[in-house]
């Protein structure tokens, strides 16, 4: 029985977190919304004022906008496919009895702890560099022309880097889920003569479904806002070939000082994230009732 006293104590204990997060959520978002209807240039304060929806119109009609949305979605979907499929396979492989399982786990999980700028620079310079990179060395070894990854396939290169960073996360979570699968159930299925594929399809995959959902949702949140990887490799180029929505907003805000348009872009990013968040919250919320 919670008494009046403990209840008010509980409220008091929660207040700092709630207030901080409330301020952190409402104030910047309100400002973004406000700026999205303003003409505002920190370098030229004379022409400030309310401009209605013209920032949105400008941002939408900018050809870069369409590119950035397409690139954002391409990055999210490609990385999700690579990491989820790869993660399932890898988790099943690591789950097998083997020697040195602990070390294998450590090696596989490691990329997740590499900070994004380091990951991007290492891949850019030492792996994918068209002249000195390891890929170029391999290509030359087979007598092939090395690929200029960031010049010719900038988005693919970024997808590879981001997938490398997130594959460990997917693998680790799917492996954790796999290891909670009841061994007896597996044996029973084997006894009944279920082949590897049907065991995978009817037993393993359904068991992992929640973990897969969680991986997809959490990765989507982070993948929608890939930033540092683009900043240190292609800088969004060539042209807009590897500009995603966050990067476009950053360019508008801090490089071109078109604050109104950047804010309009920010509002769109929020809407995009909210669509994802809606599904994410439902999935996580279900788990709370358990």
């Amino acid at each position, binding site marked *: 029985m919670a008494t009046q006293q403990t209840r008010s104590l509980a409220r008091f204990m929660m207040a700092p977190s709630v207030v901080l*997060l409330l301020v952190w959520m409402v104030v910047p978002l309100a400002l973004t919304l406000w700026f999205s209807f303003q003409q505002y240039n920190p370098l030229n304060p004379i022409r400030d004022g309310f401009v209605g929806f013209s920032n949105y119109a400008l941002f939408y009609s900018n050809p870069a906008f369409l590119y950035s949305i397409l690139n954002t979605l391409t990055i999210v979907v490609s990385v999700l496919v690579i990491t989820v499929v790869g993660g399932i396979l890898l988790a099943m492989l690591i789950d097998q*009895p*083997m020697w040195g399982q602990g070390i294998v786990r450590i090696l596989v*999980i490691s990329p997740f702890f590499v900070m994004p700028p380091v990951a991007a620079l*290492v891949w850019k310079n030492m792996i994918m560099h068209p002249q000195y990179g390891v890929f170029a060395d391999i290509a030359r070894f087979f007598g092939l022309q090395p690929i200029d990854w960031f010049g010719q396939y900038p988005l693919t290169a970024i997808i590879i880097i981001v997938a490398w960073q997130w594959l460990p996360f997917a693998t680790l979570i799917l492996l954790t889920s796999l290891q909670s699968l009841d061994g007896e159930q597996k044996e029973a299925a084997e006894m009944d003569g279920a082949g590897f594929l049907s065991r995978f399809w009817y037993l393993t995959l359904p068991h992992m479904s929640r973990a897969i959902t*969680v991986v997809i949702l959490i990765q989507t949140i982070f993948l929608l806002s890939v930033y540092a990887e683009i900043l240190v490799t292609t800088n969004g180029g060539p042209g807009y070939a590897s500009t995603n929505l966050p990067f476009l907003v950053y360019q508008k805000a*801090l490089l071109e000082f078109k604050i109104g348009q950047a804010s309009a872009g*920010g509002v769109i990013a929020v809407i995009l994230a909210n669509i994802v968040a809606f599904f994410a919250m439902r999935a996580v919320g279900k788990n709370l009732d358990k």
Partner: protein
Amino acid sequence: MARAVTNRHKTIATIAAWIVALLIFFPILYTIITSFKSEQEAIQGFNLIPSGTFESYSEVQAQSGYFKFFLNSVILSVGSTILALLVAIPAAWSMAFSPTKRTKDILMWMLSTKMMPAVAVLFPIYLIFRNLGLLDSRIGLMVMLMLINLPIVVWMLYTYFREIPGEILEAARMDGASLWNEIVYVLTPMAVPGIASTMLLNIILAWNEAFWTIRLTTTDAAPLTAFISSFSSPQGLFWAKLSAASTLAIAPILIMGWFSQKQLVRGLTFGAVK
């Protein structure tokens, strides 16, 4: 017979897993190897055996004052984590031990703040920081990192605290323990492992945060993320130095990460996968 099959199976699995694992780890391994090469060696094609020179490491420090950035990373990640814990522990505590009808909604709402794209509020935050004189200050960034990770910290602590059995509290109360005694002698010892795991994961997340740490700093408060990003502008061939700087930047967190695999799963899935 069965044993032979199992052993063969095990051998194949071992070989396959090790090959895949080494391929995935390769970029990190190659970075570490390259950091012990001279600049000349670093661009001479594929080579796994470095000459073992430490010159890149000393040059990174001499040319760019690496240690300052490292120190900033430590201060920011540890500082923001401690701030977050101070705010989050009471909240998670009360949610776990005296939940109300609204507890779940509050938790979900907290989580939803995590989904706001940073870039959407880039300029307002930039403006607020500039007007408060917080740009390139450690305090400002510390608060920022604290706010970003606060939902995860509350959630993670909540899932740990919830596992502490309530009966123990009742038993302590029956024995006449005061609220203070209850907290100090009964709850704290049981909560420490959960708090430690939360702390570890949060330090890792704060250390690797690469949006605000880059955008809100220039020199004084810049941590390793900003330092490494400054290498992106072409300054000639500097790969041994880049590797040395990278190795130093990821080594501490890599080692911490290895020890926190289990907590990582739990923290990053908000308790949905354990």
